[in-house]
């Protein structure tokens, strides 16, 4: 294998001598890093092809082991994850943990993983460590993911015989802007340049658009619009998108996602099988506990997998010390244990259809992808809501996202296909609203949820106090009337407002999301009857908060309170 270094990788030293004249030297590859599995695909000139690792796997387990000084990942590692998991040396579920603080319930739920996840519950990063020998070696989800990507990149470089730099990565729709920044940082650590971060269902939508275009090639752009609902549920995240497709253009009508996936099914089932496992690691993270938890996870995962094809499974687990679990787990029981998870899925689909203003009767195809799409209850709930018997058959649930990313990579690299297979375009939409805080902790969205990207919108605000010369602009992302339900992504102070009565200065806030989903906030001050701004405009790239934690917000509240607040200015319309 190539250079195993995983610190900031600079240039491609690997393939200087074997550089052959590749037909597409700059071609961006598509990568789908899942919570449990990962795959890479590229456009080979006529179709999308998945890469295989040295063990001939197209789907590589997303995990990294720390052993013998040199970390190794699921890309190249010869040992199975199962074996590594029992020793505490394997770090996985990176995608669930990335960009989260230790007050996050997801982080707390991760504490029963067979490696160390320690929280102080104060809103900083959790402490994550792998057991190497008898030492807990600290790491971060970012580092682990970067190690993984470095190996993935090396594998792709060897197989494609050229340096790889540009990538299209799929991400969950539920990721906040803060988490997206983290993913970009991970890619930078691995020496990769992200052309786009595509929400997973939109990548699937692009693949669907391509298939539809192939089906009706002679009727471009006219009439034959097809609407599809895409439900994607993997190990870590669940997302839904509604897309309207015609002539190779996939227009995302609505996009929604939550942090919910196979991992939740697994931990619920695990708790059901062994209720005391909730506080399993309270007494310490010894090798024995890790071993037991590893065994338990594997057995439960296996049982869930088998329940997709049979009605009941026999579970026999010997945990040592006389503790045994012998039980027949019925499919009904599994569904009952995970009732809440399935309810949340249903609500997400309904909400997405509502946001898209699409009736289920108008949905032409229902596309079900992701690892959880094999679970019968998931299939029945999706087909139930969409009132149909079958789901769209033309898409491989495990490869759809990565294939879509590879298509976008080819389109983004400017490659054209003589048969028109790459005449594609995705018109993306924002999954969350973005706005600022105004007086009384009211969240005023400026870019609305579901806005088409690129988006640009401005609103005018004004001061709430007489002679207020400064204003604090707090930018939030989310939904709801109050800022409590949203989260802070950035802040800056606007100074130099001329002294005037409250309500007089006009403060324009403009938000701009460019086509690569970069958010910039612009602010300018204007006085009535003066045509130009009173001072230079402020232009701030978001997010500015480095650690997404609530500390910053608390500190801002403590220091400034509502002293520097703004309110929406009711505009006089000049008709």
């Amino acid at each position, binding site marked *: 294998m190539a250079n195993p270094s995983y610190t900031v990788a600079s240039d491609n030293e690997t393939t200087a001598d074997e550089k052959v004249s590749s037909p597409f030297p*700059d071609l961006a590859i598509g990568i789908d890093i899942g919570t449990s599995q990962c795959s890479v695909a590229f456009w080979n000139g006529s179709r999308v092809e998945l890469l295989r690792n040295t063990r001939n796997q197209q789907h590589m387990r997303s995990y990294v082991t720390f052993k013998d000084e040199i970390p190794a990942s699921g890309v190249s590692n010869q040992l199975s994850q199962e074996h590594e998991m029992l020793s505490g040396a394997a770090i996985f579920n990176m995608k669930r943990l990335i960009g989260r603080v230790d007050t996050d319930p997801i982080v707390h739920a991760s504490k029963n993983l067979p490696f160390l996840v320690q929280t102080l519950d104060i809103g900083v990063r959790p402490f994550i460590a792998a057991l190497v020998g008898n030492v807990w070696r600290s790491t971060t989800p970012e580092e682990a993911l970067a190690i993984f990507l470095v190996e993935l990149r090396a594998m792709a470089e060897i197989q494609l015989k050229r340096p790889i730099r540009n990538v299209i990565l799929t991400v969950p729709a539920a990721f906040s802007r803060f988490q997206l*920044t983290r993913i*970009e*940082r991970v890619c930078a650590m691995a020496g990769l*340049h*992200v*052309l786009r971060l595509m929400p997973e269902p939109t990548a699937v939508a692009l693949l669907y658009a391509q298939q539809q275009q192939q089906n009706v090639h002679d009727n*471009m*752009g006219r*009439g034959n*619009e097809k609407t599809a609902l895409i439900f994607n549920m993997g190990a870590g995240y669940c997302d839904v998108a509604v897309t309207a497709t*015609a*002539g*190779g*253009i996939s227009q995302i009508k609505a996009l929604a996602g939550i942090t919910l996936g196979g991992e939740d099914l697994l931990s619920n089932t695990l708790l059901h099988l062994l209720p005391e496992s909730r506080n399993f690691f309270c007494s310490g993270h010894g090798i024995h506990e890790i071993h037991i938890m590893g065994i338990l996870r594997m057995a439960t995962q296996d049982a869930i997998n088998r329940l997709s094809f049979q009605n009941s499974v026999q579970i026999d687990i010997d945990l040592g010390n006389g503790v045994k679990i012998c039980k027949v787990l019925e499919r009904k029981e599994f569904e009952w244990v995970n009732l809440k998870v399935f309810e949340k899925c249903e609500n997400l689909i309904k909400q997405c259809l509502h946001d898209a203003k699409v009736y289920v009767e108008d949905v032409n195809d229902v596309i079900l992808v992701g690892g959880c799409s094999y679970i019968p209850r998931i299939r029945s709930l999706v087909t139930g809501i969409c009132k149909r018997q079958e789901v769209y058959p033309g898409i491989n649930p495990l490869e759809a996202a990565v294939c879509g990313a590879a298509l976008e990579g080819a*389109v*983004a*690299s*400017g490659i*054209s*296909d*003589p048969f*028109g297979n*790459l*005449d*594609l*375009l*995705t*018109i993306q939409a924002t999954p969350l609203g973005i706005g600022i805080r105004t007086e009384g902790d009211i969240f005023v969205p400026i870019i609305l949820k579901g806005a*088409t990207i*690129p*988006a*640009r*919108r*401005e*609103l*005018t605000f004004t001061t709430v106090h007489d002679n207020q010369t400064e204003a604090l602009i707090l930018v939030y992302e989310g939904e709801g009337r109050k800022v409590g339900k949203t989260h802070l992504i950035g802040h800056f102070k606007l100074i130099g407002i001329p002294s005037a009565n409250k309500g007089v200065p*006009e403060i*324009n806030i*403009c938000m*701009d999301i*460019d*086509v*690569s989903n*970069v958010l*910039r906030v*612009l602010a*300018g001050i*204007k006085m009535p009857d003066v*045509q*130009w*701004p009173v001072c*230079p*405009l402020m*232009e701030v*790239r978001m997010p500015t908060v480095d650690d997404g934690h609530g500390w910053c917000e608390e500190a801002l509240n403590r220091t400034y309170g509502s002293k520097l607040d703004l309110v929406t200015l009711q*505009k006089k*319309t*000049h*008709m």
Partner: protein
Amino acid sequence: MASAAASSSSSSLFSLSSSSSPAASSLSKTAPRVSFRRRPLRVSSSCVSTAERPPARAHILSTGSLYDVLGIQAGATCQEIKAAYRRLARVLHPDAAAASGDYHGTDFIRLHEAYATLSDPQKRADYDRALFTSRRRCVSPPFAVSMSDDVPTGGLTGFQSYTKRRWETDQCW
């Protein structure tokens, strides 16, 4: 309706053009940016006839009503509106238009605003009424202020001069 009016207000700081105030435009003018992206995203040209391109751009920039933005008749059907939107999206979406110089998607945003209004029956009815009234008063339609002649055709001011993601310098560390 109110929000549509607010978002396209003529007193916007961010759409000040050189014609309205030289001081403001020099104030908000930013230095030219360096782009690290050599090749922008684009849709291959095979699907867009080259003859279609210049008129599309020209009519987007120079006209008033939303129907003109989409290049359709005022009585166009829903299907025609969608088809026109798609045809123009192929040309004006920044992924497709970057090759011809529009990185910031101003044209596409305008196109989408027009489409969003006209594809919603309620909004379209409101717009049609407003358009009719304003035409009779011989002033420009209130909803299309930002699309009127004072919109600069090049060298946009302030925030409109962005290019693509600027890699090394633009990472948020």
